[in-house]
């Protein structure tokens, strides 16, 4: 298992490194700093590479590696190691194929790849292989859980495993949309076998996947917050039952909300958008509960360490521990990101922020910090446990989360502000021929660029610690133990929220309710489709 998990983590770190280099150039480009060889073509190529490598490769490989560690810790083994390795190689081959297509300049379609803009077929085939490879992980996770349950009837699984099982089910449910989009619509069309494609149908299938994917990124981070962090903080998991409820709520609510990414699209009637908007507010609820349970678990830890008063316990928490600092700062950032999400979700108000810089500010706080910074902290925690080597350059690992936090504050706050001022996201430069309204953005793009540079320094610290540990880390005489948090009150037997069969059924029914009619209405329109275009 150690090799399997380590292989996934190392691919994720490599993707992160490449994507981070792309990112620092983009942040400076937006501020109109003249970099060598700066062109619009290269900018859009690098935005595509950054989005695909960060959003789809770094996250997916890391989650799989971390997932295997949790599954083996709780169940004692990985059922189907051959399948797990096969999945790794398929996903890696797909990643390389798509990356080559992007870097060669033939797939500058961004990570959302909306048709009728057409990339080289290798890009779509690579993306499909990455998803297919990840399915192997979901199947291995569910099989391992199933076997363990047979041997432990009626016994509730540790919340860490419970969360990973919810993640695996969520992933299988939501990737169906993007798999159909890529395999049925995009690949035949990009090969020229089919002449036209319906962009709204493709977008709807993409966002059927594209919103739950953010919970695929978030749930494994929550697993760390619930199942590891209380232990690191010296406390206990405050509420075991509510934790299970939270994971189940994410499983059932995260897919039937995808239309909120298409609020301002033509071709979809408003009442279905409103329905998805209401469910989107619903999915804020489990995150609100998470905030309480996790902070209360930390309060237990801080008080056990002698902290007193209303807030005194906060200062007794182990801020010098890289995993703790990373997750604590990730949570703090996510508190703001969650608020931005409530703004995005607000139906009519979405027109104020849709596709503005606000959105990139928003998701760099959520996936870009809540998930990514948690994963970086977890990498520090995992490396000694997977390689048997002590973490090298510990001070860099200790300071890195703080640099990330500060850099992200600069970057995200600036982008939220310019977004409200009307600056669009994903533009090479934002001067618009000196238009008066665009000139007001300039000071803020400089703040954003400064944030980008700080983030890059932070990413470099992370890379240095990982490479340093692999090459020069002192060999430990024995592997450090993998210790999960104990609940304050352990449940004696399986409860309502452990019945995954029931909850997966509920999830499927909700998806059918949310999507069947809008899709039917779309498919019965006189649709003409659009021929492929390559404007890059």
């Amino acid at each position, binding site marked *: 298992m150690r090799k399997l998990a380590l292989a996934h983590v190392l691919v994720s770190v490599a993707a992160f490194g490449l994507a981070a280099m792309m990112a620092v150039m983009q942040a400076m480009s937006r501020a109109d700093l003249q970099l060598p060889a700066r062109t619009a073509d290269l900018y859009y190529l690098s935005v595509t590479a950054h989005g695909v490598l960060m959003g789809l490769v770094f996250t997916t490989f890391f989650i799989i590696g971390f997932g295997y560690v949790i599954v083996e810790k709780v169940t004692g083994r990985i059922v189907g190691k051959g399948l797990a390795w096969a999945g790794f190689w398929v996903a890696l081959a797909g990643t390389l194929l798509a990356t080559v297509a992007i870097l060669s300049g033939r797939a500058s379609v961004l990570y959302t790849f909306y048709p009728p803009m057409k990339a080289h077929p290798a890009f779509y085939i690579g993306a499909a292989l990455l998803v297919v490879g990840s399915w192997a992980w979901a199947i291995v996770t569910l099989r391992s859980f199933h076997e363990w349950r047979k041997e432990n009837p009626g016994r509730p699984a540790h919340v860490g495993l419970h969360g990973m099982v919810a993640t695996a089910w969520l992933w299988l449910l939501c990737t169906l949309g993007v798999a159909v989009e890529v395999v049925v619509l995009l690949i035949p069309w990009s090969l020229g076998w089919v002449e036209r494609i319906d962009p709204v149908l493709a977008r709807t299938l993409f966002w059927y996947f594209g919103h739950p994917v953010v919970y695929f990124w978030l749930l494994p981070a929550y697993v760390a917050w619930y199942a590891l962090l209380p232990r690191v903080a010296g406390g206990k998991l405050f509420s075991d039952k509510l934790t299970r409820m939270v994971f189940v709520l994410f499983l059932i609510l995260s897919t039937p909300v995808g239309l909120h990414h298409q609020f301002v699209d033509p071709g979809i009637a408003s009442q279905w958008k409103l329905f998805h908007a209401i469910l989107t507010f619903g999915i804020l609820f489990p995150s609100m509960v998470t905030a*309480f349970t996790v902070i209360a678990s930390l309060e237990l830890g801080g008080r056990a360490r002698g902290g007193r008063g209303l807030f005194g316990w906060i200062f007794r928490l182990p801020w010098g521990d890289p995993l703790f600092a990373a997750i604590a700062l990730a949570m703090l950032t996510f508190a703001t990101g969650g608020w931005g999400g409530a703004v995005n979700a607000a139906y009519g108000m979405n027109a*104020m922020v849709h596709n503005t810089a606000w959105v990139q500010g928003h998701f760099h706080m959520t996936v870009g910090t809540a998930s990514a910074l948690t994963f970086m902290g977890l990498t520090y925690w995992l490396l000694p446990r997977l390689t048997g080597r002590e973490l090298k350059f510990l001070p860099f690992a200790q300071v890195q989360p703080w640099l990330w936090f500060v850099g992200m504050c600069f970057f995200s706050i600036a982008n939220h502000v310019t977004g409200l001022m009307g600056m669009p996201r994903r533009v090479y430069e934002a001067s618009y021929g000196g238009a008066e309204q665009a000139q007001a953005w300039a000071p803020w793009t400089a703040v954003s660029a400064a944030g980008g540079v700080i983030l890059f320094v932070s990413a470099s610290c992370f890379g240095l610690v990982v490479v340093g540990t692999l090459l020069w880390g002192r060999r430990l005489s024995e592997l450090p133990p993998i210790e999960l948090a104990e609940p304050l009150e352990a449940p004696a037997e399986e409860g309502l929220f452990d019945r995954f069969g029931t909850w997966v059924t509920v999830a499927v029914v909700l998806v059918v309710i949310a999507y069947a009619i809008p899709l039917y209405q779309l498919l019965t329109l006189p649709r003409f489709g659009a021929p492929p275009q390559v404007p890059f």
Partner: protein
Amino acid sequence: MTDVDERNTEDEPHPRGTLAILALYGLAFLLGWLALYFGLFIPRGSIGG
């Protein structure tokens, strides 16, 4: 001293610090959202179509 410390953890099992933090957070969440909705979005004009 130890008695007081023990009482802190034994007699007060409720996470009052957490509740205080989240009460402030919830208030900021609500006021910030309403400020954007009624202070910025609505004045920018009607939207439909």
